[in-house]
């Protein structure tokens, strides 16, 4: 049933306002969702990285966060005693990074951004 003419104006107005509000909230929501995925470090979590000597000349580092979120894709660096980068890579899909153990002093850097980086010294890495 069509609305009487005297009614149609305000109703349309309200409808338009609602649509505007809806559009705005959709925008805000989209921004929030995007923001959530683009800044993985916003939650209250601590970065974690432990490395183990596999006993076969290789070392495996396991990364993660205290809330259980994945560290896949986090930048990994292996540096010598002087800070020279020997190996560069990323945590794999299982949040693991395996590399050949360098001779002498070395350290491993887990770099998930500011405030979320960990350095593990080679001499602390055991089986």
């Amino acid at each position, binding site marked *: 049933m069509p609305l009487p003419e005297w009614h149609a104006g305000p109703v349309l107005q309200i409808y338009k306002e609602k649509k505007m509000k809806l559009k705005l909230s959709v925008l805000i929501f989209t921004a929030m969702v995007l923001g959530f995925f683009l800044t993985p470090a916003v939650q209250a979590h601590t970065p*974690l990285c*432990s490395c183990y000597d596999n006993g076969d000349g290789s070392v495996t580092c*396991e990364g*993660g966060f205290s809330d*259980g*979120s*994945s*560290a896949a894709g986090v930048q990994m660096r292996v540096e010598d005693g002087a800070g020279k980068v020997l190996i560069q890579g990323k945590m794999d899909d299982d*949040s693991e990074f395996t590399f050949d153990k360098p001779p002498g002093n070395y350290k491993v850097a887990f770099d998930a951004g500011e405030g979320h980086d960990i350095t593990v010294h080679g001499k602390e890495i*055991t089986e």
Partner: protein
Amino acid sequence: MKHAITTISTLAILALTVPAFAHFQMIYTPESALNKGGKIPLAIVFTHPFEAGHTMEMGTPEQFFVTRSRGENTPKKTDLLSSLKPIKWTSLTNSGAAYETEYSARGGDHIFCLVPAPYYEAEEDAYIQQSTKMIVNVGGEPGAWMEPVGLDCEIVPLCKPYDRWTGNVFQGKVLFKEKPVAGAEIEIEFMNHKPLLGQKAFAKDASAVAPQAAFVLQTIFADDNGVFTFGIPKAGWWGFAALGLDPEGSFKGKECSRDAVIWIQAKDMK
């Protein structure tokens, strides 16, 4: 003659008033929340933990494995049955066949699972089989501690079993063949005598005194969803045993109580 009757009746009364201790299958390691990975010792003992009492003779377990999970990774199952070494475990009253092993733990959750051989309890002319879980975390990164591992009789924790402060509650869900067991009866015991792994024995000193036999073995029931709640009054290891989950449980033609056990470790806030 009168003396003999007195002796016999005294013995009969003693036999009838032995406190109803609960059997508890233990998987023990000293620390459930480790900061670093490495080799951890495990002792597998079937005993009465509050009193460090009679320790039963264990047969070769049916299953012993661990599932390890870290973050969002899919849990990986490792069979550990062949790593078990038979030992004699000494309680305050006897010694019984038990097992020990070592495991190299890395980061995340490790759910140790044991399905022991059914144990024949002569006094009841029936068997007991307690499927047991004990969870160790390394480094604080959680894994799939809250997921069922798929044992027929299983308690699934609803709280991290390794992060409880004294005074927190512990909640678990009792499952039989993956379905919640409404109203399941749960017995609870505190590991009141420290297991001394080097000596393969319980320490003589108890850390708590029960004012009466009921306190040795506490009893609670799960709700209609199979969920139970327990407030933890003291730091240390607590065992929960959900009893007789298989209504048709039998072994070698006799009744078999198929139970689910889980161990948790609480810490004092200091």
